[in-house]
């Protein structure tokens, strides 16, 4: 907008001239601790909690319009407002807003947190997490417990569960081979493997016996044909424990993989089932739409009846589009397109084509209703929902592994949704308004009809950055 600063009136400039509070005055008054005035930070809550001038209240700028009365009940109490630094404009906006809301004695501390800190002012924080100081013995015990937990069988199983099938098998087999060489090579002196009543030899047949025994142990099985003597028994025990861990994980991994295959199959079937059901429903919507379309040109059908039918079909259509959206984006049920990438893109394409055809039919239908009737509550809600869902389906923003055709259909749906809800439509008479303006006058569109063009620009909220 073109900026034209109005010259302040005399009374305004009087109010403004006493508005600033400097560091000296502020710190003195805080020291004195008199309760006749109140200090307010208009910074967002997080900044306020991270550090503030002692004794301040928090009223973020964006909340002033709603919460001023609750935080600052007395409108005639002296109020000093500040924000982050001299460069921050929030305090100035806060002062203006508070004055507009009827607070008569609002002043600003322009230096803000920055000047306050630089000049050595005390800072107050909100302690968000209060940590209980633990006695030193307990903490050492905790550390020991943690270390043990890291080495526990549970942790080992968790680690093994995260390895791939190939890695697990490699480690397991490697362990078996390693122990085989140990049994074979380090025997002697009362320790070693015994088969058929005598120690296994150092030859090749001895190695093969050790290998057989070691792999069987790693599989946690014992056939009783070979036994260990002396300290070798300890090694066997060690291998059994490792075998239990590794072989157990290996087996559960294989079973888990199979389960995953079955689950994927279930997902795929559910997905196809949903796809099929949706297609049927959309076909019903389409046929209803084309039937209404036929009535549209029939003067015998009253517009009221037509409107009710369009409202009904739009509502159902919105519901079906929600299902399509969920299916495409995997919103619910876990059987989304992302999980079954490319599995059924042809079916998905057909589905999206149905949606696009429905939208086209619907937007055509809307043209046969007089425009005031188009904007009846229920229909408008449905159209809005359809437009939103269309935006969700939008191909360019959905990062899904979908084929190009599906993507282009989604774009088409998005565009059609957009035109559907283009309300009020171009060329329609603009809705009349009669509203109070910031200049103190009431403005009516009717005042300009036939005289001047009008530009009406809507914005979400004052004092929120635009």
């Amino acid at each position, binding site marked *: 907008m073109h900026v034209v600063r109005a010259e302040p009136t005399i009374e305004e400039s009087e109010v403004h001239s006493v508005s600033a509070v400097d560091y000296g005055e502020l710190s003195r008054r805080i020291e004195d601790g008199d309760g006749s005035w109140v200090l307010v930070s208009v910074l967002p809550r997080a900044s306020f909690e991270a550090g503030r001038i002692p004794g301040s209240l928090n009223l973020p700028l964006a909340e002033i319009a709603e919460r001023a009365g609750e935080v600052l009940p007395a409108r005639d109490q002296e109020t000093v407002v500040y924000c982050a630094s001299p460069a921050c404009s929030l305090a100035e906006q806060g002062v203006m807003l508070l004055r507009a809301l009827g607070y008569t004695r609002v002043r600003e501390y322009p230096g803000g947190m920055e000047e306050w800190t630089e000049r050595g002012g005390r800072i107050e924080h909100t302690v968000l997490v209060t940590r209980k100081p633990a006695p030193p013995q307990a903490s050492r015990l905790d550390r020991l417990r943690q270390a043990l937990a890291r080495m526990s069988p549970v942790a080992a199983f968790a680690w093994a569960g995260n390895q791939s099938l190939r890695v697990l098998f490699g480690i397991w087999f490697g362990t078996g081979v390693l122990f085989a060489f140990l049994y074979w090579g380090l025997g002697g002196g009362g320790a070693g493997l015994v088969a058929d009543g005598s120690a296994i030899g150092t030859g090749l047949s001895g190695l093969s016996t050790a290998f057989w025994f070691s792999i069987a142990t790693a599989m946690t099985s014992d056939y009783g044909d070979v036994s260990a003597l002396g300290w070798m028994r300890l090694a066997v025990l060690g291998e059994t424990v490792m075998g239990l861990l590794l072989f157990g994980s290996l087996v559960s991994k294989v079973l888990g993989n199979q389960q995953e295959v079955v689950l994927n199959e279930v997902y795929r079937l559910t997905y196809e089932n949903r796809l099929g059901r949706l297609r049927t429903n959309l076909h019903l919507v389409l046929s209803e739409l084309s039937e209404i379309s036929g009535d549209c040109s029939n003067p015998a059908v009253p517009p009221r009846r037509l409107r009710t039918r369009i409202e009904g079909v739009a509502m159902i259509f919105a519901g079906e589009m929600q299902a399509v959206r969920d299916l495409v984006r995997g919103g619910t049920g876990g059987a989304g397109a992302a999980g079954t990438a490319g599995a059924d893109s042809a079916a998905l394409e057909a589905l999206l084509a149905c949606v696009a055809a429905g939208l086209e039919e619907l937007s055509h239908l809307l043209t046969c209703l007089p425009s005031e009737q188009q904007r009846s509550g229920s229909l408008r809600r449905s159209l809005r929902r359809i437009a939103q869902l269309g935006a969700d389906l939008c191909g360019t923003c959905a990062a899904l592994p979908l084929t190009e055709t599906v993507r282009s259909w989604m774009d088409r749906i998005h565009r059609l949704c957009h035109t559907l809800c283009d309300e009020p439509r171009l*060329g329609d008479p603009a809705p009349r308004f009669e509203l109070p303006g910031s200049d103190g006058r009431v403005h009516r569109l009717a005042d300009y009809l036939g005289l001047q063009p009008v530009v009406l620009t809507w914005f979400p909220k004052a004092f929120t950055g635009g």
Partner: protein
Amino acid sequence: MLLNEMGIACFAASLDKPEVSRAFAEWTGAGLPILSDENGDVARAYGTFDEEQGVASRWTFFIGSNGRILLVDRDISPTSHGGDILARVQELGMAA
């Protein structure tokens, strides 16, 4: 050139209370009146009411002197607001 000087009545509008709009107009020094549609009825009629957020969407309506909507701009950025509006006004040949 000011839109008002071009013979175009220009308004901003939001759902803020009149006193908030007044303070905002003073703060921004905006050369146009800010209208307060406190209960959102007009915003709803214009289709710019965002039900979820409870505020008006940033849409700009260009209305001819015959009272009909010439253009709805939904992409005007708050920073280059004035420039954008001026450009559209010239495109539409709205200036007298």
